[in-house]
């Protein structure tokens, strides 16, 4: 590897980008007559090995292959920056482990495999109420969430504490790096979460204390002003957003939460798209992971639309912009 230029890795990613779905591929998938036809199309495109996989297996396989490739291309010391993408999985596993410990019952298939910490270690820590074995970024909030869960039985508050800690961990770690792409990713993720919380909290009339606990610090949104606007009215939130870099998201937010999710994904893809022309550094690899996740998300939307026999235009309006 040439002094962190990642020349070999980027060249391999350039070849791999050829296999990413473009808009035409998605249109073809969307034009499939049935769910089974859509699966067949994916098989023809090289998804799956046996041809008998379920949709979830196909998607999981794609994700695993992406991470296998990244582990092959990136040294252990540089994997740190990729772990930022996996922190959400760790925090999801922490939620699941605390709740499983709370109900004292084994619930199957609730853990996500692809995290930075072994889910069994998280579960063991939750069962023993001893989080010292966990990494600091998880242990910090685990104790608080555990106490809340076991003393109040309030699952939502437990989730709020962990969700906020997850975003803080992603933001903090991203801003420790000097990679602009991952910083923008973390910033957008935190801002989107704050906007989502603001809208939902406003509609359910949450208290000041709840908002103080739920909102996470980020550079592009003023936490104090967002809290004030949320306590005021939905219109006040839009008025505040009008003064921020998220002003063009207002229409999507008004439309529906899924439209806003789509807006966020499209914005992220637009942010990373210049990496298609970058021949060096780790950024094109990060962009590939984001692009692959985006592709998996779009394929999942089409497959679930086909499975539920949704009309084509309803599925199409949920589709994300593609990287290639």
């Amino acid at each position, binding site marked *: 590897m040439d002094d962190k*230029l990642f020349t*070999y890795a980027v*060249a391999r*990613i*350039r*070849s791999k980008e050829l296999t990413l779905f473009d808009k035409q591929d998605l249109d073809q998938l969307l034009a499939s007559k049935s769910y089974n036809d859509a699966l067949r199309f994916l098989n023809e495109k090289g998804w799956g090995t046996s041809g008998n996989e379920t949709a979830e297996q196909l998607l999981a396989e794609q994700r695993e292959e992406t991470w296998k490739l990244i582990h092959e291309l990136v040294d252990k010391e540089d994997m740190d920056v990729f772990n930022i993408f996996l922190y959400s999985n760790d925090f999801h596993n922490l939620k699941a482990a605390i709740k499983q410990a709370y109900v004292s019952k084994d619930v199957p298939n609730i853990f996500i495999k692809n995290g930075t910490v072994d889910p069994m270690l998280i579960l063991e820590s939750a069962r023993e109420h001893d989080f010292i074995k966990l990494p600091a970024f998880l242990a910090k909030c685990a104790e608080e969430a555990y106490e809340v869960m076991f003393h109040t039985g309030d699952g939502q508050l437990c989730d709020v504490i962990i969700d906020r800690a997850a975003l803080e961990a992603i933001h903090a770690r991203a801003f420790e790096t000097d990679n602009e792409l991952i910083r923008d990713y973390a910033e957008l993720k935190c801002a989107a979460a704050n906007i989502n919380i603001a809208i939902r909290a406003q509609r359910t009339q949450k208290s000041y204390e709840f908002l103080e606990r739920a909102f996470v610090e980020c550079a592009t949104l003023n936490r104090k002003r967002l809290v004030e606007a949320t306590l005021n009215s939905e219109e006040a939130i839009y008025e505040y957003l009008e003064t921020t870099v998220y002003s063009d998201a207002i229409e999507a937010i008004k439309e529906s939460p899924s439209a806003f999710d789509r807006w966020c994904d499209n914005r992220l893809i637009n942010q990373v798209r210049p990496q298609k022309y970058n021949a060096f550094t780790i950024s094109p690899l990060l962009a590939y992971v984001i692009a692959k996740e985006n592709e998996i998300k779009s394929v999942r939307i089409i497959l679930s639309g086909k499975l539920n026999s949704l009309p084509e235009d309803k599925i199409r309006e949920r589709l994300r912009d593609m990287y290639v």
Partner: protein
Amino acid sequence: MIDFLASNFGVTLAALGAALAVFFAGIGSAQGVGIAGQAAAGVVTEDPSKFGKVLVLQLLPGTQGIYGLLIGFIALSQIGILGGSSDISVAKGFLYLFACLPMAFAGWRSAVSQGKAAAAAIGLVAKRPEQFGKAMIFPAMVETYAILALLVSILMVSAIGGMNI
């Protein structure tokens, strides 16, 4: 040692010039071909059928090393190290040294830059193999500056022999 250098200072300087031309241009080409080679290996890992195309692009930054060798060879011939008399004045020694420097430094830096341009062009071929001709042009443009340096070095090294100093 000091006595030897004092009595052969002219030829020592000239030999240093020849060595620098070979040394720096060689380093540059090794780095450039190395960078492009990594990119080529990445593409061939995924698609071995592109070997021929990426190999041509990988070799582009190799020319500076050859130019350096050429200047070194001409300089060594001119100063008589490869045969004949090597009795040259200090002034001529300095001139030979300076004559070799364009090739040394322009060769070194242009080869590294060309290697990076070649790596980017290899990425282009990976995605659009039909654009191979255009992909060749981008790194080949860097070659211009190596050729300019080669020309100046050749003109200078060849002319110094006839000067009466």
